[in-house]
Structures are given as C-alpha cells and as structure tokens.
C-alpha cells in the first residue's frame, strides 16, 4: 500500500497535535538539561505549519514537506528549527513531486531526512540527541519493509524502535547542544529531542496505518 498526500498531510497534523499535547513534557525535559524551550519552540513551529497548511493545502509530497521545513526554520528559533527544518527539506527533495509514496519511497525519504539531521547536527549514536531515536526507527523501518511487512506494520516497528532509542538516552551524557554544557549532570534525564522525534514516528505509524 502507499501513503497518499492526504495521509502524509495527516501525519504532519498528527505530529503537530502530539507536540502540542506533550508541549509541557518536552519543555520539562528540556528544562532539566537545556534551555527549557523545546516544547514551546516546536509547538510554535508546528502550530505555524498547521496554519500554513490550513491556508494553502499542498499538492505534492515535495511541496508539503518543503512547506513544513521552511515554516519550521523560520518559526522554531532554537536548534530544533534548523534540525527539523533540514529533516523535512531533505524529505521533500527525496520524495519528489508526487502525490503518494509507497513503503520503500517513504523509507528512502525518511533516510534522507535522517542524513540531513546528521549533516546539520554532526551528531553520532550515543550523543544523547534526536538521532538516538530517529536512527533506530529508520533502520527498523527498512528492516521490516525488507521482511515484506506492510508500511503500517513496519512503521509500528519503527515507532517501537524510536521509543527504545528514546528511553536509552536517559543514562547517556550529552555531547551536543546546550545539554553538553552540563556534562555528567545531563545523565539521568531523557533527551527532549529524542522524545519529540519519537512523537514524529508514532504519528507516522498512526497516519499511515
């Protein structure tokens, strides 16, 4: 099965709703090890995204994700702006001017987005960043699709992997971003970026089921 432009748009909207719902939790996580703005920043960005999509529905995957990315880079403000912005811009480029994406195409687009995040943030596994949830999710998606699982089921596996990766950030010592200034004191806290990106993958599993 393939994901239609409506489903892809729904993914974005569900992610916006999840961010809004978990806004305070994300901010609380960020207040422990960062500058306490992840929830509010990302919510401001995704609220702007939803408003843009309401005003002007996008005709293609490339147009949709570019809109999301450009809106985020201009409205989020913190580091998650260029990081999520790059993610969606790379996803847009990889998706192309199409109105639906099949499993492998969607997985390829997510992989491109992940690579964009790596290029932008220079993060590696274990740095206690969004990478630690997003990378296992993309790997799990590829693996499930390779096993012949349908996209929806594969995305659920990806969501599980993201959540595991997110939870695994708790004991880590941050090596990137504002949290790295805390050094050892960042250990014991769940990374807010890994948390929000898990919401993104979970939203995909729900929207593209």
């Amino acid at each position, binding site marked *: 099965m393939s994901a239609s432009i409506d489903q892809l748009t729904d993914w974005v909207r569900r992610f916006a709703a999840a961010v809004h719902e978990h806004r305070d939790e994300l901010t609380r996580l960020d207040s422990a090890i960062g500058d306490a703005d992840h929830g509010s920043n990302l919510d401001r960005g995704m609220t702007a995204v939803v408003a843009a999509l309401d005003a002007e529905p996008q005709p293609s995957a490339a147009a949709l994700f570019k809109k999301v990315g450009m809106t985020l880079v201009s*409205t*989020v*403000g913190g580091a*998650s702006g*260029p990081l999520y*912005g790059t993610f969606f811009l790379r996803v847009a480029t990889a998706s192309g001017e199409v109105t639906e994406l099949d499993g492998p195409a969607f997985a390829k687009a997510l992989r491109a987005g992940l690579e964009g995040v790596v290029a932008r943030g220079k993060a590696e596994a274990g740095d206690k960043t969004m990478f630690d949830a997003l990378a296992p999710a993309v790997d799990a998606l590829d693996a499930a699709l390779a096993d012949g699982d349908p996209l929806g089921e594969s995305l659920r596996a990806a969501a599980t992997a993201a959540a595991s990766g997110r939870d695994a950030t708790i004991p880590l010592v941050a090596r990137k971003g504002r949290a790295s200034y805390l050094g050892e004191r960042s250990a014991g806290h769940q990374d807010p970026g890994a948390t929000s990106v898990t919401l993104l993958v979970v939203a995909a599993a729900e929207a593209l089921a």
Partner: protein
Amino acid sequence: MTGPAGGLVGIVVVSHSRALADAAVALAREMVHDGGPRIEVAAGLDETTFGTDAAAITAAVEAADDGAGVVVLMDLGSAVLSAELALEMVDPDLATRVVLCAAPLVEGLVAAVVTAAGGAGAAAVAADATDALTAKTAQLGSAPAGADEAPAPPDVEGPTVTLTLRDPHGLHARPASRLVGAVRGLAADVQARNTSTGSGWVPVASLSRLATLGGLAGHVIEVRATGPDAATALDRVVAAAADSGLTGALLAAPQELLVPDTPARPLGASPGIAVGPARPLRAAAFEIDEDPAGDPAAEQARLARARADAAHAIEAVRDHTATTAGADEAAIFDAHLALLDDPDLLDDAHARIAAGRAAGRAWADAVDAAAAAFAALPREYLRARAGDVRAVGDQVLRALTGADGPAATPGDGVLVAADLTPADAAGLDPATVTGVVLAAGSPTAHAAILLRAKAIPAVVGAGMHVLDVAAGTVVAVDGTTGEVLVDPTPAQAERFAARAAEQADRARAARARACEPAVTRDGTTVLVGVNAGSAADAATATGADLAGLVRTEFLFLGRDDAPGVDEQEAAYRDVAAALGGRRITLRTLDVGGDKPLPYVPAAAEANPFLGVRGLRLALRAPDLFATQLRAIVRTAHATPVSVMFPMVSTVAELLAARAALDAAIAAEGRGVPPQLQVGMMVEVPAAALRAAAFAPHVDFLSIGTNDLTQYTLAAERGNDAVAALADPLDPAVLALVAATCRGAGDDVLVAVCGEVAADDAAAALLVGLGVRELSVAAPAVAGVKQSVRGIDLAAAAALAEQALRAPDAETVRALAAPGH
C-alpha cells in the same frame, strides 16, 4: 588580497537576540570612519523573541553580497545550525563566496568590520575576526601555551619609524583601526612591535594582532615596512597615528616611565660583610593543577585543605617573626591571614571550581584577578597590596601541589633574588645564608627589617642585572655601604675580608664590654636601650640599659577582645623582669586602620597612615586607653616605668593623654609612682618642629625615625619605587631631629627608637645632634654601645652641622661613614 571590483566584503550577524546583534553592530560601526562594509542582521524571531531563522539568514546573506563575498558571524547553538542551513539555501554561486566564521561574535565583528573596511577579501576578514580572541586571551593571560604566538613574520630589512604613544589609553582599538586602514591596499608588508615591552613583530594590517602589542601611554612602537609601497605605508602610518591622537599632545604623564621599579642605587639594608658563592633564589617552581582530580565538591575540599595548610604555615612564620623581630613586623602576616579568608577572593575561586576548573587553576585565576584589581587602583598604598595577594596566593598553590617554597641553590653563600617576601626573609637560616643581595627591595621593607633582626648582611636595590649572576660566582656584599662586587678581584676580596675581620674584632670587643655603660670619649653617657615586642625580646638584649621601646601591641593583636588590667600588668612586669628590673618604656597601643582590632570600632580609611592611629585612636577608645594606663600605673608602682604616647601631633592631644594618665593614677589611689616618667613619640613633623611646646609636659621625647622619615619625605617604607627617598639620613629628617633636640632643652631627654639608631654610621651623627638615648633591636645593642665609645662629642657636633648642610642623604652617608 582585495575584493573584486573594489567592492567591500559584506558582513552578516546571526544571533538569537535582535537587541544583542544591533548593539554589536553599533559597537563595530564606531570603528570605521569612511562608510565601511555592508552589515546585515539576522537575529531573533522578532524584536523580542530569541531564536534564529535560516530563511532570514539567507535573505541577509543575499543582501550583504555585492560580489565581493560575505562573512557570517554567529553566536551559539542554533545560530550555527541555521547559518549552515542558510548556506544550503542560497544560490550555489553565492555560497562559494560566503565564509561562516567561528570567531566570537562581538570581538570578531569589530575586527571583521575594520578589516573589511580596508578592502580585504572574505578569507582575510574571517581570519582577522578569528584572531580577535587572541588579544583577549593574551590580555587575560589565559591563552594556552603557544596559542597567542602566531608564526613570527620573517625578518626583513626596510625603512622604520617609531611612534611614542601619547594617548593616555595607549594603542587602543580606535586609533589601532586607523593604522590598519592606513596600510590596507598598499603593496607593502608593514609590521610593528612594542619596543618598550620587547614584543615580537606583528602585522599592522591586523587589528587583533596590533592589540596584542599591549601599547600603553609612553610606550614606543616601532613600525617597519618592505615592498614597493613601503615608504608610502610608513608615511600613512605616521599620519594616521598623529591624526587619531595616538602620538599627539601629551594628555597625561606616562606614569610607567616615571616610576622606577627599583631604588635608584644599591642601599645597605642590613650591616655586615659577606663574601661567598652566589645562591640565586629560584622562583617557586610548582605547576598549577589544570585537571580536576574530582568533582567540584572534591575540588572545593582540596582548596579548603590547602588554605588551612597555608594558614598554619603563615601562623608559624608570624609567631616566629613575633619572637625574633617583634609584633610590629609580625603583623604583616596577620594581614596575609586575612587575605586568605577574603570573601571576594573565595567566592571567585569557588565559582570557578563550580564551573569545572581544578582547584589550583581556579585559585590561581582568582588570585590573579584580585591582584590585578589591586594593581589597577589609583592609590599606591592599595596597589602595593597586590604583592601581598600574590604571596598568599602562591602559598596556597604550593600547599595544593605539595611544592616547596622558593628554593635557593643549595649550599652556604650569598642569596641573590629579585625581592623577598616577608615570609621568605623570615625563613632564611643565618647559618647558611651569609648575605643577601636583592635586585629590588627597600631597606625599610619588612623583609629588610627581618634580615637585620637575623643579622644577615644585605644590600637592596642592586638592580636587575644581579639576577644574571650565575650560581657559584663569588659575590662580596657590604651591608653597611651597599657595595656589591660580583666576582671580585683578589685585591677586592682581600679588602672585603679585612673589613669583615675588623668588624668581627669589633663585634667581639663590643660583646665583651656589652654590660658596661656607653660613654663617649669625652665622658658623656648615652643610654642604649632595646626595642622589645615581647618579654622574649627583652631577655635576649644583653647589655641594654633599658627597654627604650616596648611595643605593647603584642598584647592586643590576634585576639577578639581587649586584654584586661591584670593580664596587661603581668605582661609588663614580665618584660621588666626579663630586663633584670631595668627601666621599661611602655608605648601605649599604637595601631591604625592598617591593622584594625576587632574590638575597636574603626571606619575604613583610604590612607590609614594618615588616619586614626596611635594616640588618636586611644583617645577615641577611652575605656581601652584607661585600662592600659591602669595596668601601666600598677606596673610603675613595682618597677621603673616610662610611659610614652605614640603619634602625637598637637599639644592638646598630649594634654588629653596626660589627663587620662592622671585619671588612671587617681583611680589606683596610691599616688604618683615615684619612678614613673612620661614621654611622647616624635613621629609627626609637626611635633618635631614644635618640640619646645611639648617639652614642658614631658620627661623625654623619643623620635620614631621610621615614621618620621615616611611623613617627612612622603614616601612609604614598603613601596620599593620610593624606597630611596625614604632615607632616615636625609638632611630633612636630620633637621627635624635637630629641631627636636633644640626644642627639648636641657631637662628633657631626646631618644631615637627607629631603625636608624642601629645604623653604625648614624650613631655619631645622632649624638652630635643632641640625642642621648639610642634604642635598637636586641642584636644591635652591644655594637651601638661600642660605636658610642668611639665618639668625640665635639667632632660629632661638627659632623652633625656638616650633615645638616649636606645636599642629600648620600652625602650624609659618605660624611658619616666609618673612617671618614
């Protein structure tokens, strides 16, 4: 390297905060005079919301570029990520002309704007911006080794000019930027160095490198140029320097040039001869720990332990000094102990540790900051405290690392050092250190006083060249004349040896006759007393006719409440007993704002030496004063006692003190003790000049030459820069001694209880002026008595007349030198 088409490189400022970026741009624009580069700001999501926006950065880069390229400066975090993203979003052709610059935002922006205004290309602008941190790290002394050392420009031959900096702020950023602009665009390699500091050459084209020259008012900057436009470049540099006021009218005296850091000539600081191998004192070789051994709590604990260790060490030195040199000299170490607990210093060190620094690095940086703050103060008295801060700081660092103190090359010989801290001097062993030569220092500094107390011959102010003397080179020192001979010829060595033998003979003879009275050749008896800071001092004073000065402060310092009548009486009687019941001269409490007592309220004073001290303080603390006078009166009923009031300026003060004494006598109810004598110190020129007005109210006047010299010549004894001025044999001081003796008349004894009384050369002079009591440190008593025995009163009076007419202290010393 010039941008194409003559256009200037544009600059983009990326920040989380619009206000921050706008202010930084305003600051940077002050540096450029003729337009300057295009500067675009992409900062904040709006006027007040923090954040960065890659799309806004993209637009700013496009607006800043006019074909010559763009340098982007960023603050932190998302600013960097957003700028990188923006670089992907601009036209690829433009992207090749854009440099994302890692320079610190404010420093980098200022440097970038200046460099860009000079027409440099994007890479050069970015390089100069990145260099901008170098000046700051060099200034703060925190640069990692080598970080501030850019490769030295090659040695070149070419025309040079020198610029003497007249701007009171030195080579600061604005005139420096004019120099940068002057050489931009010329086919010349232009370099500058600070000849006053001996800096290396730096390119004039770089604002940040110019800043590392540290050019202060009065410094001489040398500029050289090579290349086809070399001559033009130097012309422009000279014009820009004059135009910007850098070399213009002298607006303020270049202080650094007026203040010598050593006395003008070598001075004898502790009498005696020493000939022996040089033992250079090596600066404390300890490493500051840079890597925390544990978490901040553990590092805080390490610092606390090291401070406690240092406190113990300082207390030991203080106690040792109190017994060997007196409570006055020991008080300096109380000040060191107070610095050890200074709350500002501690807060700073703790904050640095909390930020992840090792205890050693945190403490060293906090000490540097505190010392620098003192050193920057306008008052010399406070500036001099920087040395105390560093001395204490080093002691803690040594405790942290377990390092020893500064170590002299092992073996017996003559210690050679730049200067000695009081603690260093207190720790010297006369058995192995036969003499001391200091490049700096002052004969009246605490270190010199301690050396005299230890009878180690010493010369101070010998000049920095003595530090070049190799270990083992024979050095001959005459602590009386101030002579220092390095590698003396056999004849010279023989002369010193003969002098030393003569002195040894004299000392032996003096010791043999120590207990006989000191009578001049023509039969005038001169009393020779001991200055005592404790009963122990008095006990060691073989031959002393009396205690001419008992510093009662030893009872009052280092405690939280004042001693009572009984405790004081017991202590005074101990001093008298130690002297075998001879007369003791008890000086009432003599402290001031420089050594405040916790139980005497005192306002902070900018200059404690001109503030509430001595009798001024006693009259403001009547209960404290009354208690001491009661104890003195009781002692006087049991043993011969003289009471003496310090720091008297007016007759009214003296009368107030006498009234207090009368009240104490009345309160005791046993009448006036028959052997009680009353006197005052003459330390203030006003008292010396008007001695006749005081004389009817006293039995004796005792001249404190240390303070009298300080006040007469307005030169502080502890300040090396003016040490040569503060010579107690200055004719002005002698004139005040003469005035005191004249005013005292026949019935009032004049004593001298300052350091100069122990000066071999001075005894005849002082007796010739009319002084009839000399009170000195215990080891000097026998020698001074022997000097008195050689005096012919008529000759001494003639000598004194000559000395009063002498142009300066140096001439007086030459006149008074033994054998003259």
